[in-house]
């Protein structure tokens, strides 16, 4: 395991671009020509695009939109823009890096694992996240973490991508300060978590 990720107090957010570089360094010794990568829409997919390119992975990048697997569907419904999931490789017996922007309750990860297993039976799945909020409600852990970030109550931590493709973390106040993830954020922002 690499050194422990840095922990940031709630007032300062780490530089997402620097964290991408750190994640690439962390991941490099663990990838092989057979390693596959899957990003979780939306923010996780942005991060996965960057990691996939930097690591020069040969197997095409996969994308999961977990909307059809969410556990809060019966109360929140379907968000307006569900993207089709696309796994352009055979999942069976594959080592897969599952990439998300922010790890929070663990519910998104659970949904993503459920969906991934509907494509086949991977040999291993390891979770890669840019930021870990460390407020888990499920037994989920990331193996590769950019930084641990403490988020003030009533806020969500979001990844954003500007017109030049630069990634940045941002805090967003949210109305439902409960446990359920907020519905789809404004365009240009990853799903708030």
């Amino acid at each position: 395991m690499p050194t422990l990720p840095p922990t940031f107090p709630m007032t300062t957010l780490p530089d997402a671009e620097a964290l991408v570089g750190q994640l690439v360094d962390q991941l490099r010794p663990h990838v092989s020509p057979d390693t596959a990568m899957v990003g979780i829409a939306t923010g996780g997919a942005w991060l996965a695009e960057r990691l996939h390119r930097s690591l020069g992975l040969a197997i095409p990048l996969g994308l999961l939109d977990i909307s059809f697997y969410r556990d809060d569907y019966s109360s929140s419904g379907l968000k307006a823009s569900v993207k089709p999931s696309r796994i352009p490789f055979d999942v069976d017996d594959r080592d897969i890096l599952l990439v998300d922007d922010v790890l929070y309750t663990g519910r998104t990860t659970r949904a993503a694992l459920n969906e991934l297993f509907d494509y086949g039976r991977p040999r291993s799945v390891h979770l890669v996240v840019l930021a870990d909020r460390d407020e888990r409600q499920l037994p989920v852990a990331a193996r590769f973490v950019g930084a641990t970030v403490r988020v003030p109550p009533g806020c969500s931590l979001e990844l954003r991508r500007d017109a030049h493709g630069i990634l940045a973390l941002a805090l967003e106040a949210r109305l439902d300060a409960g446990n359920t993830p907020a519905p789809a954020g404004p365009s240009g922002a990853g799903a708030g978590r």
Partner: protein
Amino acid sequence: MSQANPQLNARGGLQHLLTIEGLPQEIVRHILDTAGSFVGIGEREVKKVPLLRGKSVFNLFFENSTRTRTTFEIAAKRLSADVINLNVNTSSTTKGESLLDTVDNLAAMNADMFVVRHAQSGAPHLIARHVRSQPHLHVVNAGDGRHAHPTQGLLDAYTIRHYKRDFAHLSVAIVGDILHSRVARSLIQVLRTLGTPDVRVIAPQTLLPTGIEGMGVKVFHDVEKGLRETDVIVMLRLQNERMRGPLLPSAQEFFKTYGLTAERLALARPDAIVMHPGPMNRGVEIDSLVADGGQSVILPQVTFGIAVRMAVMSILAGGS
């Protein structure tokens, strides 16, 4: 329709799908976009998502239909719902039970959704009105009389969008038995809702409802004039079972005057697509060469129909 749209809940979300009429364009687009995400699921190792797990969907078919019932059943099962098929014409109604008593009994069995096909126009509306005090219950119209067949209209729109991308410059011709066709009605409404500038209906006067021009379509009696420069041709089945009295000389005569042959198809744009809601009568409204030809998208319509029905059911069940 009355002042308050019975299909929408208090927040403007979709509560029932009864007709395309009065449906906001955003909801139509939301259904089509969501269907796009469901198309790929049919090609996966596990052709299911858990959205409707634990929900009970009742297929209430008061009128015969194999394809529509089957595609609704497949759609519900791919959403992980439990599906109960009732061929009601062979069941309680023959013992004298009223439609609404049947519905109450099924609601007492904790139904979550009714998919209703009925020979009487308005039957799904009646059921929707009857269950309005139970907001967890959703009604989908799977075809009522001559009135509406909204999921067919939506799947036709999905198919057209798949091949033509956009509705803004399209010319669409609907040919055949418009009079008895709830498919034609729903298709015209969805095309108008999505801003299709040129919608044509082509049929003999006896197979056109009066006042059809009021739906924003151009009427043609001459198929060769009507098909010129069209992008999409939708052929309809001659519904002999609904015809009362002689509306046509014969099926052969109809084919001679209105049937889609390769020569007539050549009058449309070279990249025009040919659609048919099925079941089709080869040699009556469409020639086999055209039905099986390179411009036919009749079978993709069936595949897309499942995804569209999955989208409708998941949007309904997620809105309560």
